[in-house]
């Protein structure tokens, strides 16, 4: 049996509902806003009544909203629309508003509407669109080089027996595959899953030395110098880990250091002992990261506010993967930075006995 509610109980239900509710009379003027609406706008019933509510609608949305509302009102048709509404703190938030006609004693009496704040959803959608556009951009880039190499080979403007032409094709395929690997690793991180790793006894110095040796392949055609500082006698930096994943960490950090360095920058890679741990430090004198962005740079798909997409394309996967690999090896990642001065990345990894 449906419980009977008093008028006050009904009123409390409407006033406290976690949606913003409004009502308009037959003249299309609003004559009621619930407490949730008034708490959102920080205004009184009297201020909002009539057309007062329209003062809070963003100027860029107002004409469109009013025209849409009146058109549906006069045709007595329900509507859904989105607009920006000024919150009590002065910030505009995107609102989803659904209005339906209602009747009293079988006669059209006006409209009742409910609104929810969809700002967070809008921002998440915008971020997803940006990320997808960046992913598409990053995937198209090696494909463009690959297609051009293949067209050149097909046009036989170079002898097809030239092995370097095929090496170049292979490098684009590897680059493409690496992007796909990064995308699937990032999806695992977002799903709270471990990354695939095959751990064994290894030497960090050997991996560091190999990465430093192939540095020119990491940043081909760039004038950025690498200063590698480590005593690399075999066995000095024993640890239990996946050498391929540790190499991926070093390559990611070095790539970032180079990407955000000026054309003739200097990047330092230093490996040393730090008590019971190994310590890897990568320094650059590049763009740097704003203090507000520092805690966010290891989140998947995050892009620093000063890394404009037009100048520094990238998806924002490298540091998220790097942090996860280090965590899976029992290590820690620390980043300090000063905008305009450079960035220092410090990785500590436990040494094995």
């Amino acid at each position, binding site marked *: 049996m449906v419980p009977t509610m008093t008028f006050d109980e009904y009123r409390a239900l409407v006033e406290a509902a976690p949606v913003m509710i409004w009502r308009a009379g037959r003249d299309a003027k609003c004559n009621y806003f619930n407490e949730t609406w008034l708490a959102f706008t920080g205004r009184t019933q009297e201020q909002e009544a009539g057309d007062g509510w329209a003062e809070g609608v963003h100027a860029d949305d107002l004409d469109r909203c009013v025209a849409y509302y009146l058109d549906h009102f006069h045709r007595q048709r329900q509507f859904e629309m989105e607009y920006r509404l000024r919150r009590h703190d002065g910030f505009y938030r995107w609102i989803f508003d659904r209005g339906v006609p209602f009747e009293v004693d079988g006669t059209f009496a006006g409209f009742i509407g409910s609104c929810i704040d969809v700002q967070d959803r809008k921002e998440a959608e915008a971020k997803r669109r940006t990320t997808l556009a960046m992913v598409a*951009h990053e995937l198209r880039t090696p*494909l*463009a080089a690959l297609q051009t190499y293949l*067209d050149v080979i097909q046009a036989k*403007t170079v002898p097809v027996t030239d092995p370097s032409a095929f090496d170049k094709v292979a490098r684009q395929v590897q680059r493409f595959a690496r992007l796909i690997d990064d995308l699937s690793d990032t999806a695992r991180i977002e799903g709270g899953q471990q990354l695939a790793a095959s751990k064994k006894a290894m030497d960090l110095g050997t991996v560091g030395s190999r990465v430093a040796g192939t540095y020119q392949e990491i940043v081909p055609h760039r004038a950025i110098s690498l200063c590698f500082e480590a005593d690399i006698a075999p066995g000095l930096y024993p640890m239990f880990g996946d050498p391929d994943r540790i190499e991926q960490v070093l390559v990611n950090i070095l790539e970032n250091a180079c990407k955000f360095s000026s054309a003739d920058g200097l990047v330092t890679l230093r490996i040393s002992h730090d008590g019971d741990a190994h310590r890897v430090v990568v320094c650059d004198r590049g763009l740097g990261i704003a203090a507000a962005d520092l805690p966010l740079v290891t989140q998947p798909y995050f892009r620093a506010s000063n890394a404009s997409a037009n*100048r520094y394309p990238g998806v924002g996967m490298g540091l998220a993967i790097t942090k996860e690999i280090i965590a899976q090896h029992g290590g820690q990642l620390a980043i300090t930075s000063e905008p305009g001065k450079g960035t220092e990345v410090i990785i500590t990894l436990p040494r094995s006995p």
Partner: protein
Amino acid sequence: MKPRLLIVDDEPDLVDSLVMALEDGFEVHTAKNGRIALDRLTAEPFEVVLLDLMMPVISGEDLLRALDGKPHPPVVVLSASRDLHETCVRLGVTHYLQKPFRLPALLAKIADARRGASGSGTSRA
């Protein structure tokens, strides 16, 4: 004498592939960002420019704005951007190709640009 062509792109592999593809027909020069390209375009004559949009230091968009209103060689924009068409309409660029592209399509775009089809810039030659 071969016509002088300037490739402005920060992707070394793509630049390398384009040099291989175009060096038979053009005297190919390269610039890895908009700043270097702007300096070269100010100092030297080129018949055509192949321009990427996303680049460090000065982006392709910034370079086009810097060239706007000045005599400059015709530009073919090559970009992996998803909204390339909208961007080029907004920038007033007539000749553009989305990456990846086929070589014959690129050669056709270069020929169109050099003929001044729909004119995206004035040739200095």
